[in-house]
């Protein structure tokens, strides 16, 4: 889609201003029902679009993303724009600097139209935990769009925006992409700078694109990746080596099917659809091997120790004084102790409070070894198992989610059942691996089905090439 829009702009079939206005019109028509956006940035968007038009009129050459509208999840900072991360505690916070990804997209000339709804501080799998309102799934308004990047996924799926950025800590890009029937890429940990992303769990968080096609996701990933002085965990992906490797291997590609992902509880329609895709790959003479990752079922257990531990420490900064003070306490607060306790008690939603307490518990004296240290050991085991399996196969294919999009309210009262909707996505975060959701069809009830492809650490570019090939196969059969 990005290439198409780019061609229209350079052939002057449409102006950048017109393009921006057209998208705002679609947003105005559809968003009252879907509620994907928290903030719109129309004035700035039109100003930037005018600049692009002037450049085109002067006969200037424009880049592939120049003049292309996009949206971002509200936990990514944009200078001068409200950034809430879906939380009441940041209700009035206006960011004082641009995140590195924003700076990069700005340099490419992409145009920001708005910020999208999310579960508060990215904690949730349905966008029901937003401090403001619930986003609906464009395919069925009674169902959730997934989460936590639910606003970004719904906005792309409803064609309110060509692409959006989300963040993925345990599946928050891939799971909503699967529920909304779009492409969602979680890059290798560290390949995209986290500078300006509001921290949730720093050893797991990564920013990535949600888009209509794998090609679009690739265009965006190439624009935002790379080592950044401002994020010491960021790294450069070696594109050339990665692709060279792939060219050598493509004719004898081996794909693994980890049996632990095809267990009881997996929706039958999802299982059937994936089996049909696997059959197509076999017809193409691609080798498929059944594999086992015995420690992977414990990835979710590890996740619900490591993530809340990091959350409890990252969210300590919200003290009621910095960022977005809450001043309307009744009766008025007279001492610092009460200010902390009341602001954090009022400003954080229920799920955030639950995770802060859980994280405080697993890190507290007497429990640290049994929980946190144990989880970090199992994490090593899971990573080693993945590394070993990738000596034998190039990529792994799994379902992205155990079920299609569920009903609004269906899981919101039982935290554990909500947590289990991330069961197939968390392992890639625990081990830092790149993984992508590819839409592969629909259930009888017209709900999207997603396929997850996981690659070795740092193989983002070759992963995208392989998934493009699978995408073409799927398109033919849809």
């Amino acid at each position, binding site marked *: 889609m990005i290439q198409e829009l780019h061609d229209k702009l350079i052939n002057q079939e449409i102006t950048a201003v017109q393009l921006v206005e057209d998208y705002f019109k679609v947003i105005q028509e559809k968003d009252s029902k879907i509620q994907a956006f928290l903030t719109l940035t129309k004035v700035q968007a039109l100003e930037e679009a005018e600049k692009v038009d002037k450049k085109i009129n002067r006969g200037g050459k424009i880049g592939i993303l120049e003049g292309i509208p996009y949206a971002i999840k509200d936990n990514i900072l944009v200078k001068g724009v409200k950034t809430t991360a879906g939380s009441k505690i940041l209700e009035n916070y206006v960011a004082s600097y641009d995140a590195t990804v924003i700076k990069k997209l700005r340099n490419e000339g992409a145009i920001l139209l708005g910020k999208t709804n999310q579960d508060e501080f990215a904690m949730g799998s349905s966008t029901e935990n937003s401090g403001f309102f619930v986003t609906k799934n464009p395919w069925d308004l009674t169902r959730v769009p997934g989460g936590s990047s639910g606003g970004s996924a719904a906005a792309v799926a409803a064609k309110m925006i060509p692409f959006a950025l989300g963040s993925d800590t345990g599946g928050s890009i891939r799971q909503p992409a699967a529920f909304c029937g779009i492409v969602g890429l979680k890059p290798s940990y560290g390949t995209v700078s986290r500078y300006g992303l509001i921290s949730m769990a720093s050893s797991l968080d990564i920013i990535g694109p949600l888009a209509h096609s794998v090609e679009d996701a690739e265009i965006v990933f190439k624009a935002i990746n790379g080592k950044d002085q401002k994020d010491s965990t960021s790294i450069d992906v070696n594109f050339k080596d990665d692709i060279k490797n792939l060219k050598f291997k493509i004719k004898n590609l081996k794909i693994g099917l980890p049996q632990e992902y095809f267990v009881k509880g997996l929706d039958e329609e999802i299982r059937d659809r994936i089996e049909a895709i696997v059959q197509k790959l076999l017809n193409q003479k691609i080798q498929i091997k059944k594999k086992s990752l015995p420690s992977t079922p414990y990835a979710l257990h590890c996740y619900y120790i490591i993530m809340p531990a990091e959350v409890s420490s990252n969210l300590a900064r919200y003290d009621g004084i910095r960022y977005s003070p809450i001043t309307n306490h009744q009766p008025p607060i007279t001492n610092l102790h009460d200010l902390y306790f*009341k602001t954090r008690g009022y400003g954080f939603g229920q799920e955030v409070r639950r995770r802060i307490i859980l994280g405080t518990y697993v890190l507290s004296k007497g429990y640290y070894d049994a929980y946190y240290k*144990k989880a970090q*050991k199992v994490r090593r085991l899971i990573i080693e198992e993945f590394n070993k399996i990738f000596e034998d196969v190039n990529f792994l294919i799994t379902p992205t989610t155990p079920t299609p999009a569920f009903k609004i309210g269906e899981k919101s009262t039982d935290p554990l059942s909500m947590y289990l909707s991330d069961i197939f996505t968390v392992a890639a975060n625990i081990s830092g691996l790149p993984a992508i959701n590819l839409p592969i069809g629909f259930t009888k009830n017209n709900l999207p089905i997603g396929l997850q492809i996981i690659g070795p650490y740092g193989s983002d570019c070759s992963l995208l090439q392989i998934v493009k090939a699978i995408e073409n196969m799927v398109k033919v059969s849809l």
Partner: protein
Amino acid sequence: MDFTEIDHLLELARLELSNEEKEKIAHDLAKILDYVNQLQEVKTNNLEPMAGGTFSKNILRDDGIDSRKLNLEKEGYFEVPPIFD
């Protein structure tokens, strides 16, 4: 988990909760801890805990001595240029 334990955690986390919510949180935490406790089944003898999601290490430069700034003649300590006059 009893109320005393919850209160201790709330004190550490600087959070205020209503009694009603304390009850709900205690119930939820018991369920979640039951679940994550299944990790004890996994054998992890001789495994070093990870410190993050990757094997990357700190990149540090080697310590070096800039002889122009130091007087190594005086034994036992470094002499550095004066900072205040």
